[in-house]
């Protein structure tokens, strides 16, 4: 496995539940990710610089928070059900943004609603985790992050395995497996 760079991936976690934020933060940190956790979609959008003026930064997924800071977000993991804008709304906004659409988005939900899951995957979510999220779920994130990094390094890489291919594949269960995988 070519882990050439020891770069720390930065994950933005969005969840209105204090407990779940603490949990996801720990899960991600245990997996050696850098974490920023916010409690609402509007805060996430603010962090990503989507609120207010259009970002002119030509280097996605780097987003300028302000002139002095450049924040890179390699993945967004968000709860689905939140007061105000939902995780699905966030997903849509990310995918509609020229500068952010390549950031992988993962949705979490405590409710197992197949139509909801499909909707998210069709909208471009990489994974859908049932809560409570576990380490085995977080372990599934690395390939998405590595791919994102590869895409970043090779701008002409045609690795777009998005949308349709995702939701049509029957093998991809978006939630925890029952098989005894040796981790």
């Amino acid at each position: 496995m070519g882990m050439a760079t020891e770069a720390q991936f930065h994950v933005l976690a969005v969840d209105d539940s204090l407990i779940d934020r603490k949990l996801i933060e720990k899960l991600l940190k245990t997996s050696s990710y850098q974490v920023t956790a916010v409690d609402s979609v509007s805060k996430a959008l603010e962090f990503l610089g989507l609120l207010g003026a259009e970002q002119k930064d030509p280097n996605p997924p780097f987003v300028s928070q302000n002139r002095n800071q450049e924040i890179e977000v390699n993945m967004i993991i968000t709860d689905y059900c939140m007061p105000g804008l939902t995780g699905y709304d966030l997903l849509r906004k990310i995918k509609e943004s020229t500068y952010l659409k390549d950031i992988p988005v993962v949705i979490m939900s405590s409710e197992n609603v197949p139509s909801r899951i499909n909707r998210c995957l069709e909208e471009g979510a990489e994974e859908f985790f049932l809560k409570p999220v576990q380490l085995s779920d977080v372990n599934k994130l690395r390939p998405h992050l590595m791919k994102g990094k590869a895409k970043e390094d090779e701008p002409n890489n045609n690795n777009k395995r998005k949308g349709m291919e995702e939701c049509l594949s029957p093998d991809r269960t978006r939630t925890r497996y029952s098989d005894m995988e040796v981790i």
Partner: protein
Amino acid sequence: MDRNQVHRQVALMRQSFFDQGFLDEQFIQLEELQDEANPNFVEEVVTLYYRDSTRLILNIEQALEKSPLDFNKLDCHMHQFKGSSSSIGAKKVKSECTQFREYCKAGNGEGCMRTFQQLKKEYAILKKKLETYFQMARQAGPKEIACRPKPKLDICPDLEKNYVGWIPSRFRYTFSF
């Protein structure tokens, strides 16, 4: 009581939580996240849960006093509370939450109130048990209980390690849709 005996007591207490259905596998997930960087992670999360859920319980109580009952609101509050309870592995509490939501969907106010009383009982019982457990664990001193090493496929745990009946976390329930 020597240290080994205290450890054994703690392990037995812990096992009883699973055997008696107070806690589920999610609690083990929390334990697995505990490490040198966060040696009290489980206790921190549980403490946070009890602190945070006080607010949620109050919201539900207030909502239950309204007339007529707003079942949507009640369900929404309970959804949040259930989520938190689920995240710490509070099995019986979570079960009451589910029951409560069923009554909300059915528009059964009496059912809601009855279930809520039961829920609060379970919530309080668990709190007491966990407080005692953490206190004892601290007295026992740092060992496997506090800082769990990386789990292996350990189906028959060695009693010496105080992993009495530890359930390997990778044995998951089937999910399909």
